[in-house]
Structure formats: C-alpha cells, structure tokens
C-alpha cells in the first residue's frame, strides 16, 4: 500500500506538456529517488503534490485526495518539503526560519500572542526546543543567530532541510537537497536523510542528480524524461536500464566528456 500515490497525472502549460500520465507511489519508511534530466518535470511533480500546480489525475495521501486543496491545507496534512532554491526568509536567522515551519503546530490565539501571555510564552519555548534540537542534529547551532541571506547556498539548503524536518512531517519531499553542497556536506546530508528515514519511518520523495548518493541510500528510483515515466525499480536495476542510461545518465556522461575535452582548450 502506498502512503502517497499519484495516478495519471497530466500537467500542461499552454501547449507545453510538462507531465504526461505520470503515476508513482511511495510507501511508508521508503526513500524514493526521483531522477531525470533538467526540465523533465521533477519539480513540477512536487508542485502538483503541494497544490501549487493544478494537474488532472489523482493524488492521494493517507486516504485523502489532495486534488483541489489549497497549498496551506495540504501542508497542514503533514506534507513537508524543501525547495530547489531553498526559499528561506533571507533577513531572518536560521532559528526563526525553522520556527516558521512550526506554524501549524502553534495553538495560541492572536490575543495570547499579542499580550505574550504565559500560555503563549510556554508554547513558544516548546517550539523553540524542537527547533533547537533539529539545529543541533544538523550541526547548525553555531550559525543559528545569523540572517540566512548572508550564508552560503549550501548551508541555506541544509537549513531548508531542517525547516522541513521541524514541521514533524508525515511525508518529506526534497528537491535537489544536495545541489550546491560540497562533497563533505553531501556525505553528511546523505547520512541525515538516511537516519531521518529510519528514525521517522515516513515516506520520502527525493529529487537528486548525484547518482552516487542515490545508489547508496535510495530504496527505489523513479525515472522521468520529458514528463514521462521511463523507469521504476531498485537502484541496481534502474541504473542499468539502457533506456534510462540513454535518456539521463548518457547525457551527463556526454556532458562530462565535453567538459574534459574543453578543459585543455581553455588552458591553452
């Protein structure tokens, strides 16, 4: 049984077919990697799940249909996500950015917040404790007081990952969390993704270009090309599939080959 299931998702922008009858599902405790070349429609799938885009087809999460729901209502169901470009609040610090994601857990009323009544203060302290735990977990505590707009992009991405975690999600959607990270940061991120999966036992959908990371920790891979699904299965199988290699892995290998060929020219 899938916790999250997409069936026959179609999405158009004008004449452009972005998603063409895409179907996929994620089980609880499963890490599903979503791979495919740039422009394949990976981010669009996340935006369909989040309710930012309005596709046709079915999207069900734990027995509830997400089609037609507002993004905030969908987030409230426990769908946490990170963004390809982090999308943090630049002038707030990491701690405040994470507190934003506690939004749906805060129970105090406007008047309690306004007058800073003891009830509101106690609750705020509880949320702060959750935030501080996640900051600790991700080794971000020493940066937590700095406005995030001035931090390196890689750090912003990790803060974005923390922001998704702190919301106590029932499913986690991660959009290229490793893009912009150094090799060392990537290894750390892979560890955090893997341990979050084991600790929380929630389904995770993970857009990733780093095949080394994917084959190391993903349970399954779903491959997208020009808005179509062209493969789904365990990493060992999918990464050997000739069609997948041609559509995706081939292009990166070609790109790498071009890079190495161009390098001496630039030097000369």
């Amino acid at each position, binding site marked *: 049984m899938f916790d999250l299931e997409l069936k026959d998702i179609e999405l158009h922008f004008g004449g452009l077919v972005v998603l063409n009858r895409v179907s996929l599902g994620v089980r609880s405790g499963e890490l599903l990697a979503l791979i495919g070349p740039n422009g394949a429609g990976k*981010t669009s799938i996340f*935006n369909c799940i*989040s*309710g*930012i*885009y309005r596709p046709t087809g079915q999207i069900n999460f734990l027995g509830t249909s997400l089609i037609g729901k*507002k*993004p*905030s209502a*969908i*987030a*409230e169901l426990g769908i946490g*996500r990170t*963004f*390809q*470009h*982090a*999308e*943090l*609040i*630049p*002038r*707030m*610090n990491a701690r*405040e950015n994470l*507190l*934003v*994601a*506690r*939004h*749906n857990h*805060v129970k*105090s009323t*406007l008047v309690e*917040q*306004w*007058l*800073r009544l003891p009830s*509101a203060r106690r609750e*705020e302290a509880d949320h702060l404790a959750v935030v501080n735990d996640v900051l600790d977990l991700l080794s971000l505590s020493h940066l937590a007081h700095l*406005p995030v*707009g*001035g931090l390196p992009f890689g750090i912003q991405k990790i803060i974005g990952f923390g*922001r998704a975690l702190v*919301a106590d999600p029932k499913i986690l959607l991660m959009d290229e969390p490793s893009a912009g990270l150094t090799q060392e940061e990537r290894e750390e991120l892979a560890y955090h993704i893997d341990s979050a999966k084991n600790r929380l036992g929630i389904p995770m959908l993970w857009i990733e270009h780093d095949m080394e990371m994917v084959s190391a920790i993903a349970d399954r891979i779903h491959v997208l090309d020009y808005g179509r699904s062209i493969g789904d299965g365990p990493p060992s199988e999918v990464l050997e599939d000739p069609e997948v290699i041609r559509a995706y892995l081939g292009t990166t290998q070609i790109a790498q080959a071009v890079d190495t060929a161009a390098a001496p020219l630039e030097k000369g």
Partner: protein
Amino acid sequence: MSNTETGIGKIAPVRAVAKGDGGNRTAWMGLIVLLALVPLVASPFHLDIASQIFIAAIGALALMVLTGIAGQISLGHGGLMAAGAFTTGILYKETGAGIWITLPASVVAGAVIGLIFGLPSLRLRGVYLAMSTLALHFVVIYLGGEYEFASGASTGIFLDPPVIFGYELYDGQAWYYALFLLVAGTYWGCSNLLNSKTGRAWEALHANETAAEALGVQVARYKLLAFVITSGIASFSGALFAYYQSFVSVEAFTLFMSIQYIAMIIIGGMGSLTGALLGAIFVTLVPYCIEWLMETVPYLGLDISTASSASHAAFGLLMILFLVFEPSGLIGIWKRTVARFSSQSKKEGVQ
C-alpha cells in the same frame, strides 16, 4: 514576486531582522526613565512636539508592521487616521460619548475599513496595491467632507478634552505621559506579535507567498489580518490626533500625510519597529528644522509661504537619499555606530 514554480529564486536584500525587543534591556529602561523625566524640564513648545511625535509613532508602528514586515504597500494611511478622527469626532458630537466608547469605536471602524481595503491585496501587488489603497484615502475624505457639509460643521468638528477616570486630559504634561504610555504599549504589542506565529507568517509571505503557502501559512488570511490589525492601530492614532488637536477637519488629512508616514518607515529603516520610532521623530522634526533654518539663516530666501513647499521638497529629497544611500535607514546607521564603538572598546581592552 519570487518564483518557486520556475525555480528562479528571488534575490532579496540581506538584512538583519531588527524587530525591536532585541538589544539590551538596561538601555531601554534607561531611555524610558529619561523620557519620563522630560516633562519636568521641557517647555510647553517642546512638550507639544514630543506629543506630536508620539502620535506619529503609533501610526508609524502600524505602517511598519503592514509594509515593513508583511510587505503590503499602503498609501491609505492618512485616510485611516482620518477615519479614526472622524469616528471619534462624530460620535462625540452626536452622542457626547466618552473616550471609552470613542476610542474602541475608532479602532473597530479602522479594522473594518482595513479589511475591506485589504481585499485587493489578495489580487494586487506593489504599485497596483498602492493605487487601490489610495482609493481608501479619497473615500474616507469624501465621506468626512460630506458629514461636515451635511451637519453644517463646514469648518470641522470641535472636541472637548477627553476625561479619563474623572481627570481631564488637558495640559501638555498629562498628554505627554498618556501618549508616552500608549506608544510604549503599542510598541510592546507589535513586538510581541512579530515574535510569534503571526509575525513570522507575515515575514514568510513577505519573502515569498508561494513558499509561505507550501509551509502551511494561509497567505490570504494573514494578509487580511495584517490590514485589519494595522488599520485598527492607525485609526486609533487618528482618534488620539483628533483629541489632541481638539478638532477634526478633512483638511488635516492630506495625501501628503500618507507620504509622510511612508517616509517615516523608509527613513527609520524598513522591517524594524525601533526604526519606525526613529522615523517618526525624524519626520516630525523636519518642518521645525526648516522653520528654524528660515529664522536663523534669513538670506536663504525662505519665508512662510515657501516653508511648506520647502518641507515637501525636503521630504522628497530625504526619501530618495535614504533609498539610494542608506536603505537600512536610521536604524542601520545606529547599529553600525554601536557595532563600531563596541569593537573599538574591545580592541582597547586587548591593548
């Protein structure tokens, strides 16, 4: 707006959040004690200026929350103050209601108007939103003018000094203390909100509405809430203005007033409550400084007739100068100064 859909991130200015509260408690306490002692030595003229600053500060705090925090531009601030002033004036004139009725009524009137004029913000942004809030100004002024005309009070409405717990608020010292407390209370309330779920939701939707929604923030609801709360506060300061002047008339609420409030939050420093206070002080003092210049430097060629256009021009110039050279406003200058001094004293300590 930034674009989560296409993945094109917005390049936002990097700025530390400066929402008041922060910094050190002793400095604040010292400042409060100092301000409490002012009336013992100040002349009536200076007390009057201080009271004007306090009224402006309440309005500026409201606009700072709406524009500087929640990112919703408004040119209707003068109109909201007019709404509060007229609600109080009309209620007093027609029913003789006391301050415990007129002030809450003004807050409610402002909040309702804020809700109505916040609705376009669900569709419009930036300049278009500013234009729609401009309509608010003209509607309120029109209605106020109609009332003045219909009631035969074509010169305006006169108000008697308000009575609080049997005490008539009349002399400059009493006004100073009353307004001082109200500014402190407004600042405290706003600061509390900014450091809570509500304020963080405003910051989130200001930075990126799509991302905020995906984090669970009901953007439409929180935008309207920002309009409702800040309009209530702006209207409240308009009511205080009416009592303080003992007089309400549409002439007082020009479009220039709205622009002055925008000048306050820009000059003070966008996104900072303390900046709103600094901006209110600065902008209230500008006309007095120009007057003073006129008197002390006669050969500038300024006289009474050119003074007001000179102060208009000065505002325009100051706003542009701040936007270009000091976008973080007075609060930015202040923070840099403090940082420089503290780093200097650290160096000295090492040597």
